[in-house]
């Protein structure tokens, strides 16, 4: 069987959906971060495969940048968790309730 | 044109002094003194303007501009007055010092109060002198904000609701009007050239029929016919002014606002702000939408009649002096509306030119006279409230004539002027209006006479209940006017006599304008 563009795209869409599902249903902030990463990486997969099938390198170049940005994002995110943990001793989203309408 | 920009100065003077007064902090005497100085200075300037105004010409004078302001939107800085504008500016300059003099007792944050009054004056003068819609609209709205706060902060017990109601009604009207003019703006804009906001150009376009063609051509909207579309646009503009005047059934904000506002503020509201609506009818609706008024003539005329008759009856049913006077204000301005609508009749027949000119002259006079008289009447009510500790019910008093004869005499004169007694100013305007309207719209005029009768009845009732009859013992110590108060009040009273006996003083200025307007109505 030939593996074509659509196969990559399906996998990438599945990964994106999984990531989104994780962000919506999971409660632990660290797991949430992982799900966010999954979403970003699904986009990376799509970019790489498009790049391969479109016959230009723009997509691959983009992926390099995105990987870097994603790392920075996680760093910021972890710092935020630490800041929250110091105040609240928690890393769960249910506890983010001090401000409500 | 390198002359002194006198109209700009008259507009900016109260604005600047308002800022100074409000910025001074709570120095009551200083704030009051400055506000009074500024308002008298304005009055002096306007009187100077009046003297140098050429009454033989109905054209705009003291024109400034048009200077480009926001070229991309066709907004220009364009000022000028004709007889009507000048008369309104004079009225503003007269009523504002009256109101300031009457509000000597403001204790709560006087600097803000006086500042707001001056801002209001600036807004009013701006409205009466601007000739470009955008520019005009800014001042129209600008006058609303200080008025709202004046009612909201210094009014009676139910002032919050009254102020909100006042604001919401006027705002809805303004928005409708804004949309209507936006439609006109879009219809008149060409690629690479902004649309037209300028009243004079718009009136020219309306006269030549261009506007009629442009609107449906540029804005053919869904399945609306050209005629309906035009009526929608006209309706939007009409609503804005009808609320302000107010014309029934858009009047329900008025009694609450007038009676809850403190009396000096009501002097401003009824004396000048209500004139903004009538002014809009004459300056904007009549020249730009004459045909549409003509199409809708019958319902509009009858709305005016209803306004006149019902407000008079409603005034008769009130037991609170301020509410009575409020309804009587609606009634008096109803005559103006009646005349404005009647003038749009027979737009192609030249034979009624004299009647129309008379009617328009009547409208102008009525606006001025009512402003003066109503302001004076609310001043008297303010004095009553001061003396009675806030009471102003029709039945709270009685026999005041015996303890305060001068007070009752002077207020009686103002009341008779409001009633339209010949010899006083109120008569002249109404007489001219009826003289003009009877040949144009006999039935409407005939029914409106009922309004005159009922007005006479309720004004006589006031005289009877408050001044005559057995003396209410509670008020046996009711103090009469002091010399200072007499000295101040005698001025508007004297003006009432002067204008009643010698109306040419004003007519000389406005007649040419009225004739010119009638001439331009032909198309």
């Amino acid at each position, binding site marked *: 069987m030939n593996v074509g563009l659509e196969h990559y795209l399906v996998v990438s869409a599945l990964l994106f959906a999984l990531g989104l599902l994780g962000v919506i249903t999971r409660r632990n902030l660290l797991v949430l971060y992982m799900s966010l990463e999954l979403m970003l990486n699904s986009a990376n997969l*799509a*970019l790489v495969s*498009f790049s391969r099938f479109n016959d230009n390198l723009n997509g691959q170049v983009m992926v390099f940048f995105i990987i870097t*940005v994603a790392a920075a994002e996680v760093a910021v995110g972890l*710092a*935020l968790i630490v800041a929250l943990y110091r105040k609240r001793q928690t890393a769960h989203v249910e506890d983010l309730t001090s*401000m409500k*309408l | 044109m390198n002359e002194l920009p006198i109209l700009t100065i008259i507009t900016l003077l109260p604005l600047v002094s308002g800022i100074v007064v409000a910025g001074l902090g709570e120095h009551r005497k200083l704030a009051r003194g400055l506000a009074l100085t500024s308002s008298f200075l304005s009055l002096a300037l306007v009187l100077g303007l009046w003297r140098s105004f050429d009454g033989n010409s109905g054209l705009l004078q003291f024109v400034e501009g048009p200077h480009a302001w926001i070229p991309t939107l066709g907004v220009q800085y364009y000022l000028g007055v004709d007889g009507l504008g000048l008369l309104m500016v004079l009225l503003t300059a007269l009523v504002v010092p009256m109101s300031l003099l009457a509000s000597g007792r403001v204790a709560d944050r006087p600097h803000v109060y006086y500042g707001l009054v001056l801002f209001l004056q600036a807004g009013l003068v701006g409205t009466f002198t601007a000739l470009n819609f955008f520019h005009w609209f800014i001042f129209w709205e600008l006058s609303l904000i200080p008025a709202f706060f004046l009612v909201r902060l210094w009014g009676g017990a139910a002032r919050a609701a009254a102020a909100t109601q006042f604001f919401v009604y006027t*705002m809805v009207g303004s928005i409708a009007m804004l949309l209507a003019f936006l439609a006109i703006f879009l219809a008149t804009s060409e690629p690479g050239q902004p649309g037209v906001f300028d009243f004079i150009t718009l009136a020219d376009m309306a006269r030549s029929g261009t506007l009629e063609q442009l609107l449906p051509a540029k804005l053919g909207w869904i399945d609306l016919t050209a005629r309906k579309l035009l009526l929608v646009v006209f309706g939007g503009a009409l609503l804005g002014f009808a609320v302000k005047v107010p014309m029934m059934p858009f009047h329900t904000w008025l009694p609450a606002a007038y009676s809850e506002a403190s009396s000096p503020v009501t002097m401003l509201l009824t004396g000048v702000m209500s004139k903004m609506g009538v002014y809009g009818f004459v300056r904007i609706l009549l020249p730009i939408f004459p045909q549409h008024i003509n199409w809708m003539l019958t319902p509009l005329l009858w709305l005016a009649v209803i306004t006149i008759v019902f407000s008079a009856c409603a005034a008769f049913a009130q037991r609170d002096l301020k509410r009575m006077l409020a309804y009587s204000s609606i009634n008096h301005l109803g005559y103006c509306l009646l005349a404005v609508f009647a003038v749009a009749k027979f737009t192609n027949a030249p034979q009624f030119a004299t009647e129309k000119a008379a009617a328009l002259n009547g409208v102008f006079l009525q606006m001025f006279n009512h402003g003066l008289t109503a302001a004076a009447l609310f001043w008297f009510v303010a004095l009553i409230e001061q003396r009675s500790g806030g009471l102003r019910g029709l039945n709270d008093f009685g026999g005041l004539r015996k303890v305060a004869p001068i007070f009752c005499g002077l207020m009686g004169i103002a009341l008779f002027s409001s009633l339209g007694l010949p010899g006083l100013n109120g008569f002249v305007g109404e007489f001219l209006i009826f003289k003009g309207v009877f040949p144009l719209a006999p039935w409407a005029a005939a029914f409106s006479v009922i309004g005159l009768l009922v007005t006479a009845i309720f004004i006589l009732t006031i005289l009877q209940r408050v001044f005559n009859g057995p003396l209410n013992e509670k008020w046996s110590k009711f103090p009469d006017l002091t010399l200072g108060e007499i000295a101040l009040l005698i001025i508007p009273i004297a003006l009432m006599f002067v204008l009643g006996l010698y109306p040419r003083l004003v007519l000389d200025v406005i007649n040419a304008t009225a004739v010119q307007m009638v001439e331009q109505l032909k198309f």
Partner: protein
Amino acid sequence: MNVSYLELLKLAAPETIVVLTALAALVVDLTSTRDLEARFRFIINGMIACAGCVAAIVWMLVMPAHANALEGMFVVDPLTQVVKIALLGLTLFTVLISMDSTFTEHIGEYLALILLAAVGMMFLVSAEDILMIFISLELTSLSLYILAAFNKRDVNSAEAALKYFLFGGMAAAFTLFGLSLLYGLSGATNLGQIAAALEDKGLDPLLIVAMVMIVLGFGFKVAAVPFHLWAPDAYQGAPTPSAAFIASGSKVASFFIFAKVMMIGFTGGETNGVHEIAGSAAWQQFVSGWTPVVAVVAVLSMLLGNLVAIVQSSVKRLIAYSAIAHAGYMLIGVMAHSGEAVASLVYYAVTYGLTTIGAFGVVAVVEARSKDDQLASFAGLSRRAPVVSLCMMIFMLSLAGIPPLAGFFGKFYVFAAALKTGAPNLGLLWLVILAIAMSAVSFYYYLQVLKQIYVADMPAGAEELRVPVLGQVVLGLIAVGVILLGCAPNLLVGVLQASIKAAGL
């Protein structure tokens, strides 16, 4: 492709200046001012930051440039320069209103982050390439997340930042996925090339997915319903100057790039006066495309923002909900996608940003003394701090759209542009009417704030608020700016129109 690095550096000089200033503020704070009192440190480093902004502004004024470097990676034209100058102005005011605050010891870092966020926004404005768009969006967002968490003493601050971060991360993922699909469909990363490739393809299902995802991502950045959930919490919990910057600078840049992406990337071929990909949101004549999507978002934002704002008791939350509503008005300008509409949009966004910074500045003044931002804390403010109260009145009235303030002209201009685009059918009239009705509603809650300030009685024992002279001057300047831009809008509009013509949008 020959790239002259010297030329590139010259083009990016304003950004470079701001980055260097950020580093300078960091270094100075870590070395020479370390032992000073926090207040002096703030003033010294704040002045450095301001000087950097001013230098960058002056550079752009003196050296107008018009170039497209690296195939749309970095576009400098008069329009982007105007927007950058406005952004730097907003940054400047943000720095100025934060000088009085006491929420942090890490002053150098704080200012450096503000400046870095500003650099991100400036690159964002210049980007016409999806890679640059994504990276500068992230640079801006990451800096703003940290700024939101900067008050380490307050529990709410970290929570606000986390919420902002989670929603932001998700939105970034959506945007990125949408952009990757766009790249796949067109084989290009440059917006112009993408548009050219999509010209005759019509509405591909994949394109619809890409479009919706991109709208969603930007919808988050501009806090439009239904991606608004972070905004109230972030505004309330974040330190007030940070919130001001999130509400102003970030909004201006996001709206600008949103409009640009939509206008350049997604117009498509024209049939019967309707752009194929844009579609049409005209009444009873919907044509599928991105404009109906944006129309739905705009309607929801205006309704929800205004109605929920009414019941707020925290002033910052109130401003947040009103920000959602304003995003709705501005989306109408995005939808109109014409040169005129972009001018109106930028005018609106800039004046809105200015006004919001001012409003947050007043909130910061009150908050510094009464420790919270509840409506009740504003009671009788007019007697305690008359100048500040007057400024707040101007800001609130401008936000409500009362003439002759900038807010009125902004709304007027956006609506006029939208109606013009919809002509000859006035198709967007329904949206404009809704927007006007909703802005009338908004007057109610703005008035609630003014009512507290001017009508309500002072709490017993409250004394006069000592507002630092600098704070008063800054707020006064912003207020004067709001009045000036409202009375003489041509100052900005004229420049915008000329630059749009020059940029060829």
